[in-house]
């Protein structure tokens, strides 16, 4: 008879890594579906490319490191990284963007640090930053939602433009970016940023067709879908509520205060919450169990830090959206946060009483 010695925690639910990763990936599905319906099918092709690349790179590195390939591939962590990166990049970016990004995420950011559980940085976001820094043009070519596009895009057009840079009927990406009246469209965050830079007020900018209600056309629904998926994950206890709440909470509070102070130049909290990647990042990216903070108090600090950084970069920094940078910077702070928020060991006094 053998006694199995395991490290704490001794009481846990019986979910395996593979199961959790699969649940997170599945919870992305509503968001992906909405994205595909409203913005065209590019995102689906990116997903396929990303997943295939992730599996190949993971297998390659595991082989080189002399580890068993199949068990690691089956834990779905590479799959999830690929899914998150594929959702985050512009859906009609050329195919080599996602291939370079995914290979970098898996090989450099994850496996070179020792594989799953050892990476300091969120692989998908590190790869996103790599791509954004290296290929700024391709990484900012977001198409407007289908309802505002001047050319009808078929699924086949998505394949054509991802692999040949031109849609099957011969339009380039920058032509596709133009709306019916010929004005190049950007994402709502980008449009707002440019307008404010040109001296327009917030209200004047919000009259443009890329905006709808209090957020961007299409983007509102995408964010709502990710919010739904994220709430499902919390209900299933796959992720803790602390990080998403802290991210959303701090962004909400900061932008509420700021918009009261400068109503003409800083958008309100609802706009910030339902634009860009807020919901995706708050529920799916910031909650990465490996690179996020692990203590309960620490998770609140970590999430609030991300919210603060996003607020600062979106309103005062050089980029329209900032989740990748915010998550990476917060990842760097995680060891410090964890050190100062260590929970009291059972049976010991709090550290403050020891002195």
């Amino acid at each position, binding site marked *: 008879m053998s006694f199995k010695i395991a490290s704490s925690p001794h009481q846990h639910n019986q979910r395996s890594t593979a199961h959790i990763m699969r649940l997170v990936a599945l919870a992305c599905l509503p968001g992906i579906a909405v994205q595909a319906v409203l913005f065209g099918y590019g995102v689906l092709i990116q997903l396929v490319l990303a997943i295939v690349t992730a599996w190949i790179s993971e297998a390659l590195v595991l082989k080189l490191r002399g580890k068993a390939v199949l068990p690691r591939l089956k834990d779905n962590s590479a799959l999830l990284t690929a899914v998150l990166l594929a959702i985050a990049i512009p859906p009609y970016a050329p195919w080599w963007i996602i291939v370079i990004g995914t290979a970098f995420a898996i090989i450099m950011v994850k496996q070179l640090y020792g594989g799953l559980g050892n990476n300091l940085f969120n692989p998908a976001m590190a790869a996103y930053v790599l791509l954004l820094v*290296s290929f700024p*043009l*391709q990484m900012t070519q977001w198409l407007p939602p289908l309802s505002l596009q001047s050319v009808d895009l078929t699924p086949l057009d998505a394949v054509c433009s991802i692999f040949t840079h031109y849609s099957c009927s011969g339009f380039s990406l920058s032509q596709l970016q133009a709306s019916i009246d010929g004005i190049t469209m950007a994402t709502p965050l980008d449009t707002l940023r440019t307008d404010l830079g040109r001296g327009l007020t917030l209200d004047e900018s919000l009259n443009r067709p890329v905006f709808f209600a209090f957020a961007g056309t299409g983007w509102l629904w995408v964010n709502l879908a990710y919010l739904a998926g994220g709430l499902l994950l919390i209900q299933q206890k796959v992720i803790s509520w602390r990080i998403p709440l802290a991210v959303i909470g701090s962004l909400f509070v900061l932008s509420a205060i700021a918009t009261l102070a400068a109503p003409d130049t800083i958008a309100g909290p609802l706009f910030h919450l339902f634009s860009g990647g807020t919901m995706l990042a708050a529920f799916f990216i910031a909650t990465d169990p490996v690179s996020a903070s692990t203590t309960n108090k620490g998770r609140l600090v970590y999430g609030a830090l991300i919210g603060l950084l996003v607020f600062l970069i979106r309103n005062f920094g050089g980029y329209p959206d900032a989740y990748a940078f915010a998550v990476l910077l917060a990842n760097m702070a995680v060891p410090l946060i964890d050190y100062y928020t260590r929970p009291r060991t059972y049976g010991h006094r709090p550290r403050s009483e020891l002195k």
Partner: protein
Amino acid sequence: MSQFKELTLQGLWKNNPGLVQLLGLCPLLAVTATVTNALGLGAATLLVLLGSNIAVSLVRNHVASEIRIPVFVLIIASLVTAVQLLMNAYTYDLYLSLGIFIPLIVTNCAIIGRAEAFASKNPVLPSAIDAIMMGLGFMLVLLVLGAMREVLGQGTLFDGADLLLGDWAKALRVEVFHADNHFLLAMLPPGAFLGMGLLIALKNVIDNKLKQRQAVEKGSIARARVTGAAQ
């Protein structure tokens, strides 16, 4: 002769200032965006290192050990100034593109390191050989890193070599592949850090392979290490 061989091996491989001692990382990482810049800075560093090692070795018995570091720094600084003026005169464009990193050779730890660790304890000839080998080792690392970054970043090799070597060197420019989209990261500082890490990893892999082969040839039993990394 065996000392000469040992110094060569130390400088180029075993104790390479770039890959093993990790000295002079600031210029190493900052100016290796192209092969030409790497070659220019490598040559400048080699010259300064040679001069400083010879000078330090000559004065080693006349300088009180309490003030040796300021004296070494003065020697190095005057040599760097001389090299800077030379580059300003003869390779002006390269001088502009290397910018602040030429005067910063003064603070390159590889140079003061060799002065302190080797030249202040050895006669002139070994010091000079040590300087040449260490300088060459440093330059090789710069060149390899520069080549990696230039190929990845803009798909060329020896772009702008004429700035350093004169007009004939325009023929050296090789276009490895044509890229519409430059891989900017390779040209930016993070690319230098990643490339450097990969080079060090490669060196460790080769070292381990060599060690294994030697162990097999000797027929000795490799002792299993259970604590700490082997390197």
